[in-house]
């Protein structure tokens, strides 16, 4: 196990050290992509775009940061130094999806403890909902906690198994 970790660590270090060493011009040498600023098709699109804030700022940003294909549109290259650009939106999505799921679950669990659980599903109990949202914000911590205390999963004795 220790050997696997050391190999993994060596690999990660190599990637993190090696990628800045790739010069900007070499980074896209193995693709047909060119920097958007030097792509004629992209420049044509930029000139034909409406002249306002919502078009100018993105086009300037794409021209400075992204690589364009023959169609003049920005394309992503799978590169380790761009990995954060994928990890951050994925992390945000994952957190938001978990927040929605966990708050709904917390609300339903909470509503089962009050006198009329059905009514709480039609008329939202604001106090309970705010409590559920607060729990939802902390969902990664709560999920780990409930998993370790086995509140999150049913015990094996409650899980029905079809006859074999």
């Amino acid at each position, binding site marked *: 196990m220790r050997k696997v970790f050391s190999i993994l660590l060596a690999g990660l270090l190599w990637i993190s050290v090696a990628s800045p060493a790739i010069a900007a011009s070499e980074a896209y040498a193995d693709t047909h992509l060119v920097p958007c600023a030097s792509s004629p098709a992209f420049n044509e699109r930029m000139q034909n775009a409406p002249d306002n*804030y*919502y078009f100018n*700022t*993105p*086009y*300037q*940003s*794409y*021209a*400075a*940061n*992204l690589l364009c294909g023959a169609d003049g549109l*920005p394309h*992503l290259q799978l590169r380790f130094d*761009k990995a*954060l*650009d*994928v990890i*951050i*939106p994925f992390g945000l999505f994952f957190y938001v999806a978990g927040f929605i799921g966990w708050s709904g679950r917390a609300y339903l669990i909470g509503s089962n403890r009050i006198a009329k659980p059905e009514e709480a*599903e*039609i*008329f*939202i*109990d*604001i106090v309970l909902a705010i409590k559920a949202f607060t729990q939802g914000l902390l969902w990664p911590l709560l999920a780990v906690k409930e998993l370790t205390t086995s509140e999150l999963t049913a015990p094996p004795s409650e899980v029905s198994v079809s006859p074999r």
Partner: protein
Amino acid sequence: MKHLAKYLTSAPIMATAALVSLSVVLIELNHIFPGLQYGTYFRSLP
């Protein structure tokens, strides 16, 4: 007043309120960071 409060907490009204607030957040994000997409997060806008 009590009936109005109860009506306002009904599921369809709350769902609409949630949708409107989410739309406001997304529209404002697009206003502050227009064209935000993969590959442009860590480079300052020119």
